[in-house]
């Protein structure tokens, strides 16, 4: 409630003062916002909570596996679970996703086996899933490059007449705060705008691009960048799974309806290191992490479920057991994952192997044969 000049009382938009859209406070209190209605059942919210807990467990397990030498590196999503599960759960079955290399929560929502994610970080593959099957493109490591792929894909949706009406499709391009400085991301915004492409640009602003804080990337809040490109930008509490869900769902529907792109800035925090090779104590204060721990994306949902009586001790105990099993299964799958046969190095360079590739493959196979007990084989692909 605010008091207007002249004494009239109005209902102001229910948003925190900095424009952050929030539907669930860090204390677990539900805030209704008429612009972002959420029609989720108790089951739905318990499911979301389950996703949050399980992807955090997968992440924790992966960090441990890296520490034990089973993975070469891991990019942790710790702290960003709500941004990923909220937006991931807002996707329709036909919507297409273009991730960075940290979207383990979105991958989970798209049905990607977490073992496939580990393959990449173990060095067994560059990305082993079929993007068409899961509507989830391969992880992209070059910062921002995938935003252009996403935009082109959205232009393809337009050309297929899949905008507007039943069966309409849209795209979500994920990227981080650092990526907003990349030329490709800015070019993607230009393309998305002038072609009015059915796309949601979902920026997880986790405050840090390795060691560089947001102020090294931007003098204005990132969501305000959208205005200069000619489409709406929104800022959402990225640690609020309900808000991320509602905002993304609405932006996706607008895109499917032909209203063009939206930029969503999900304000969140990278609670861990950039990757397992990084040491954040060199560039940020521990007190900052303590502040963000109070805004933890999982704790607030738990508090909400408990306070409203939608989940009791049995639910949480069962989930703990499930998480332990998911972790144990992942650990086992990682430790028993074989290295690919050496000659697969030559596979899938071209639709058909070239003469030079065939020759190199044969020469290397012959070389391997000079070693006792060498094992290789298979036809080139």
């Amino acid at each position, binding site marked *: 409630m605010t008091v207007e000049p002249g004494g009239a009382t109005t209902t102001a938009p229910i948003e925190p003062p900095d424009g952050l859209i929030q539907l669930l406070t860090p204390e677990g209190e539900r805030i209704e916002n008429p612009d972002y209605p959420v029609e989720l059942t108790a089951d739905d919210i318990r499911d979301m909570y389950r996703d949050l807990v399980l992807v955090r467990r997968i992440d924790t397990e992966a960090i441990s596996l890296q520490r034990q030498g089973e993975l070469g590196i891991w990019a942790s999503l710790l702290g960003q679970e709500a941004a990923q599960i909220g937006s991931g759960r807002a996707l329709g079955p036909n919507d297409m996703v273009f991730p960075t290399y940290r979207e383990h929560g979105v991958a989970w929502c798209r049905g990607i086996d977490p073992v496939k994610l580990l393959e990449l970080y173990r060095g067994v593959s560059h990305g082993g899933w079929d993007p068409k099957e899961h509507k989830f493109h391969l992880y992209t490591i070059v910062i921002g490059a995938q935003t252009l*792929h996403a935009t082109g894909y959205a232009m393809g949706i337009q050309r297929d007449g899949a905008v507007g009406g039943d069966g309409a499709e849209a795209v979500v391009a994920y990227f981080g705060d650092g990526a907003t400085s990349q*030329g*490709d991301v800015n070019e993607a915004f230009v*393309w998305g705008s002038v072609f009015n492409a059915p796309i949601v640009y979902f920026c997880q602003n986790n405050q840090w691009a390795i060691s560089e804080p947001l102020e090294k990337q931007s003098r204005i809040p990132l969501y305000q960048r959208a205005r200069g490109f000619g489409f709406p930008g929104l800022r959402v509490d990225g640690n609020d799974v309900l808000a991320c869900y509602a905002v993304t769902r609405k932006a996706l529907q607008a895109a499917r309806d032909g209203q063009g792109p939206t930029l969503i800035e999900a304000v969140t925090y990278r609670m861990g290191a950039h990757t397992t090779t990084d040491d954040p104590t060199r560039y940020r204060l521990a007190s900052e992490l303590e502040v963000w721990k109070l805004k933890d994306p999982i704790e607030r949902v738990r508090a909400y479920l408990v306070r409203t009586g939608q989940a009791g001790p049995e639910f949480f105990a069962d989930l703990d057991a499930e998480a332990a099993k998911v972790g144990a299964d992942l650990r086992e799958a990682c430790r028993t994952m074989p290295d690919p046969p050496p000659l697969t190095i030559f596979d899938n*360079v071209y639709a058909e192997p070239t003469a030079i590739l065939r020759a190199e493959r044969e020469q290397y196979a012959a070389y391997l044969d000079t070693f006792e007990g060498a094992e290789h084989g298979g036809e080139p692909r």
Partner: protein
Amino acid sequence: MTTLTLSKALNAGLRRALEDDPKVLIMGEDVGKLGGVFRVTDGLQKDFGEDRVIDTPLAESGIVGTAIGLALRGYRPVCEIQFDGFVFPAVDQIVSQLGKMRYRSRGHVSLPVVIRIPCGGGIGAVEHHSESPEVVFAHTAGLRVVACADPADAFTMIQQSISSDDPVIFFEPKRRYWDKGEVEVASGLAGALPFDRAKVALEGTDVTLLCYGPLVRTCLEAAIAARDDGRSIEVVDLRSLSPLDVDTVCASVRRTGRCVVAHEAPVYAGFGAEIAARVTEQCFYQLEAPVLRAGGFATPYPPSRLEDHYLPDLDRILDAVDRTFGY
């Protein structure tokens, strides 16, 4: 047979591809209403519409990056990079994304994207409009790199490139856009030489002269001039730099015993180096002389008033040929 310029032959090939497959798109700067700065896409937007012949914003990485996305959606985009020197902003998308996606995806993803690049010098242009960056792409596994040299090949090779399920970097010799030649427009692709094969453009017995793109015509003229000196030069148009048709190249060198490679790009670490190594490995006992190279200097492309000194012309190519007879 129809007489067409190389530019018109490309236009006819693109038109045919657009007619044959509704998934084929053309995209680039000024390719629509203007028809491209060299008019290669003239009239195509008028006939196929703005959704298929797309005037894009002015950003090369954006052109290639969105083409990748369209290909992921099932389209076959043909991108125009306006000039050779402007391809560099798109190199991440070409080298790190386009070329590697099939490999990255373990074969799940094909990216049938063609990137047309007018290349080479000789038109008196300002900086960045006369370059020959082919080795950047030939060195990238996953890309096919081809160069047409005459209208007949331009017509067939652009269509073959569009049909390919691999990404193709398609170099067009810009100073030859206005060269005329006979093109079999009616018969289409049936019987055309596969686009990854080299061809003997002129048979000879004394020395093999390897070339591609803009220098094919120069080399043919050199071969004719050499007849006055009693030299029989075999001119081989490589047409494809990746993959390289090693068999055709080596078969010719084994016949002649001598080999010269000519290209506009700098000799240093140029494509001729790859050829020299392969020919030496495979034809060592037939060679009468080392493989020699004629090409650009190890300098940036010079101001255009000096380009006649930079570009290997008929005399410099024949000088290299003469030197192979000095061993």
